[in-house]
């Protein structure tokens, strides 16, 4: 049995916290270099799936293979861009420091940063359009800039698979566009990008594959195959309004509280 055509294989995994199972018996396969949008209602298990994919949450059952090998064999080939609320923004680090952390896995924990590491960090910052902010404290940046700093860190990791949890929620237009351009660029380098989003238009227009979830797999495939009435009705239930000549999804989403954070920064 050969695994080479697929970079990521998820086989019958169930994930949850304690006795509670959030995701039941999920299987899918992602060819290398694909851009995958993960879509589903709130609490459908998107973040939970991501945590399992990076190894933060143990699997209740099933297996995950990357390059045909069990999760964890390739130590840092998966990079994860967390939701913004998961980070301590008042920590004394510069943007440059944050991005350099992405290199730690490959440089070694005891070694000093090499010229290659520094070059990689600078290139990543430039790619995300924040090279001029390198010496700023991470807390001084706007929400969108902070997210781009974390994307830069993820690129600096030189991952084979990049996971982004809600990168389009509550960010400015520049950040959204930079993130989308990054996705295209990653595809050229055959990096697989798996992105959770509530923006179904983006999912349909800018991604190769859509993974539709609601505690289990509803559909997986090309956007036009996945976004059909039956699938959406299964995933979103009553939030879906079917009208003559089309359907409407009355969403739902609760963007993270951007304002809250800005107040903090300005209060300093």
């Amino acid at each position, binding site marked *: 049995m050969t695994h080479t055509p697929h970079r990521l294989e998820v086989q019958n995994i169930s994930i949850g916290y304690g006795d509670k199972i959030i995701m039941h018996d999920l299987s899918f396969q992602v060819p290398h270099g694909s851009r995958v949008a993960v879509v589903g209602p709130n609490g459908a298990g998107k973040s939970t799936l991501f945590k399992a994919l*990076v*190894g*933060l949450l143990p699997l209740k059952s099933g297996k995950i293979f990357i390059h045909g090998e069990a999760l*964890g064999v390739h*130590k*840092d080939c*998966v*990079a*994860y861009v*967390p939701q913004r609320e*998961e*980070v*301590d923004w008042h*920590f*004394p*680090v*510069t943007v440059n*420091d*944050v991005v350099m*952390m*992405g290199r*730690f*896995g490959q440089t070694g*924990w*005891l070694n000093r940063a090499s010229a290659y590491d520094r070059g990689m960090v600078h290139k990543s910052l430039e790619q995300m359009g924040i090279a001029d902010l390198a010496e700023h*404290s991470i807390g001084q940046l706007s929400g969108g800039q902070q997210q781009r700093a974390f994307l830069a*860190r993820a690129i600096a990791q030189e991952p084979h698979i990049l996971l982004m949890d809600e990168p389009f929620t509550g960010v400015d237009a520049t950040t959204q566009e930079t993130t989308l351009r990054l996705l295209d660029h990653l595809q050229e380098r055959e990096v697989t990008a798996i992105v959770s989003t509530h923006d179904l238009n983006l999912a349909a227009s800018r991604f190769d594959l859509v993974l539709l979830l609601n505690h289990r797999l509803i559909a997986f495939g090309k956007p036009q195959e996945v976004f059909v009435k039956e699938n959406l009705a299964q995933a979103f239930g009553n939030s879906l309004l079917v009208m003559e000549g089309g359907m409407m999804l009355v969403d739902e989403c609760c963007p993270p509280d951007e304002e809250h954070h800005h107040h903090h920064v300005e209060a*300093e």
Partner: protein
Amino acid sequence: MNWLLEPLAYEFMQHGLLASVIVGVLCAVMGTYVVLRGMAFLGDAMAHAILPGVAIAYIFKGDLLIGAGIAAVAVALIIGLFTKDGAVKEDTAIGILFAAALSLGVALISTTQTYTVDLSHILFGNVLGVSVSDLWLIGGLSFAILLTVALLFKPFLVISFDPVLAATLRLPVELLRNLMLVLLALTVVVSLQTAGVSLAAAMLVTPAATAYLLTRRLLPMMFVSALIGALSSVVGLYLSYYFNIVSGSAIVLTATAIFLLGFLWKRIKSV
């Protein structure tokens, strides 16, 4: 210059000065983690929690530092155990242990005859009673702790700033977190002689909090904190010599004065 040299004519002042500078630097460096990770309460609790160990060592004429060391490591590990998987909230677990250990310590000390003197030395330190062997122990332990911090600078940075990244990079987060607690416990033990259990917590928090106001990156914060810790120790000890006040208090008050200056400077700068 004479007023600077005069106290150094006494051997106990030389020992005291050396010990307080070492402890000032050590506490200040470990204190950066205490401040950044929100462990101020833990530092305070740990300082008090070593009291039973000290008391037992005292009663059985053992080495106070070793007794304190065993107690501190035990407390750090018990807090880790209680809070694992969120069974008990960390500050609650600390509160319980803090009170229990302090009571046990005082109960044990109250069985001795020279109760008040002993207690005051343990609570507020006795920097002028530092022996040569104490100095070696303080110096050796401090060197070992600081060396560990230097070697593990990057892992400690990542687990403090972004535990999720730490996990994706397959760092042993739980092990590192426990190691940091043990290092903190040992730091408190080392500072027992000069600052005492009541003032050790202040030496952990105050210089580091000042450095946080003045710097923007972790490594400079550590160096500035260490400098403030050392400066407070020297100035405090001279104040204690000339004004005849308890040395631990003088050191902590000096550190507090520097903090107030830093706070004012930051305020004026941001206007």
